[in-house]
């Protein structure tokens, strides 16, 4: 009887395992900085302490070959007791900015998620998610505001503490930002890591036909290789670890 029970459980377990998949998780260790970081989109000396981490995967389009001149990106990250910092370098042969003046244009023509920009995704893994915990924001090239949930918002309220700055750089642009730990719901003094994904979006401003609004042409990602939308599935995120040194 005991043997049969063990056999039953083993067989059922084996079947269950066959149905499950297991993915690899990308990991990056970020160093602590003791220098004050000024958010001005400059390649200041304190950024020399860490290497550029590339975004090697393409999420969109689903097929075809991409020219690196068209879109290529890499980033650096640092942290201190108050903020998590990112510097993102983007190579884009046709940076595109969309201008909308009237209320109707802003509502219908200005589709933020289609524009050149950077999307940050976080998952702190906490079961009790507080209302003002940041899990997504967007920096749009040419805009002075951060965007939450795809809608353009002027930086007011709790998320106004996120600072960002951008500049044209070589054949693309640089973006620098700082995120207070309070918004992420964690702190490196007691937490080791956070799940993270970075997407960079490219819109070349080429509409499908005259009079049409151009859509994003390509999206590249840091962690995910499966072309999954990170807004739908946070299991594909990588992990950034807080390197506390010796």
């Amino acid at each position, binding site marked *: 009887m005991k043997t049969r029970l063990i056999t039953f459980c083993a067989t*059922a377990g084996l079947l269950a395992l066959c149905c499950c998949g297991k993915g690899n998780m990308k990991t990056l260790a970020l160093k602590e900085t003791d220098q004050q970081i000024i958010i001005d989109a400059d390649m200041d000396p304190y950024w020399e302490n860490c290497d550029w981490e590339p975004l090697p995967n393409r999420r969109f389009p689903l097929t075809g070959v991409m020219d690196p001149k068209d879109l290529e990106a890499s980033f650096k990250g640092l942290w201190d007791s108050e903020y998590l910092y990112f510097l993102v370098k983007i190579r884009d042969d046709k940076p595109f900015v969309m201008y909308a003046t009237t209320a*109707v244009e802003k509502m219908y*023509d200005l589709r933020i998620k289609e524009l050149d920009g950077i999307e940050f995704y976080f998952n702190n893994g906490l079961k009790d998610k507080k209302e003002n915990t940041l899990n997504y924001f967007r920096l749009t090239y040419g805009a002075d505001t951060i965007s939450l949930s795809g809608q353009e918002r002027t930086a007011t309220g709790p998320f106004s503490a996120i600072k960002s700055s951008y500049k044209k750089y070589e054949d693309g642009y640089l973006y620098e930002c700082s995120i207070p730990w309070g918004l992420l719901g964690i702190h490196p003094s007691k937490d080791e890591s956070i799940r993270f994904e970075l997407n960079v979006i490219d819109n070349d401003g080429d*509409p499908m*036909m005259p*009079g*049409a*609004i151009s859509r994003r042409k390509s999206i590249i990602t840091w962690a995910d290789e499966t072309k*999954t939308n990170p807004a739908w599935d946070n299991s594909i995120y990588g992990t950034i670890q807080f390197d506390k040194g010796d």
Partner: protein
Amino acid sequence: MMKKTIKFSLITVLVILVVAEVFFRMYYREELKDQASPLIFQPDSTIAYRHIPSSEGFLSKPGIAKRHVKINTHGLYNTEVRQEKEPGTTRIAVVGASFATGIYMDGEKNYSVQLQDLFNKTATKVEVINFSMDGLGRGLANLKILESDMLAYQPDLILFEMSFPLSIGAMERDVYKDYLITYTNDSTRTIAKGMVDELEDMEMFKFFYNCSYIYRAFCRAEINDFWKSHRATLMRVYRDKIARGNEMEEHYMSTATTMELLKTAQDLAQQHGAKLIHVSYYLEKNNLSDYFNQHGVHSLFLNLKFEPKNISHPDSHINESGHAMIANALFDSLTRNNFFLEP
């Protein structure tokens, strides 16, 4: 002892499979049922595709019970109509995408049919003709139906399902070996046909898919990430009975260009004695009514709110009760305002 263990393991596996098969057939019957797409389309150089005159077929999708679809001799999803208008008749033309077409719905009578039924109960001679064509990105293509097809029927009133801004990017459609194929050019048409041809040799896959709901469930999980493998793409083709040469991406005209195109269509309709009104089923928002007025474009907002009971879940289209809401709202609005035909 070993033989007994193996025998017991096999029996265990069989029992689990039977239980799982029963489970999926009972609780996921709708999501995993056989699907069908009506083979009623042919490509068209002006409007991307149109119905094949006198064609018929079946539609079956999760949320939509299997239904027969019949296209009339003029290529319209409508009862037979004469192009010449009878004297004393007010002719209403309806044009839009899937909601207006009313093929993708659970139930039988779309809102054009129900609107006609309502007018049949009155003393006024009214004829409602549905010129709609379903699909993504059909805003501009459906506007072109005005000139290509509709004006020849001398409508008095044209109800154009609001697409604001006008969507573009509709793919072409055609029928190939009992499958609907969609594509944007000759190259993707060849890809679509190639997938259908490849499926012809996949006898084992088709056998298991047709027999087992467990297998369909696994396929469904794989299809959800269809871009990850060619096999998942083929599974999706067989499940949907649609071979997509490439994925549809809906684009939009700018708001400024949209208003220019709508005004031009409106003026063209007026030259032919028809009034064009852009109809939205939903609550007006963003002061769109004012915006349309400023540009001299006629609009009508029905201000309807569809409840879950009006939707063909898990499909997102409205069902017959949702179409009844639109028909009743249009009937009230048209009769109250004398069909909006007074200057």
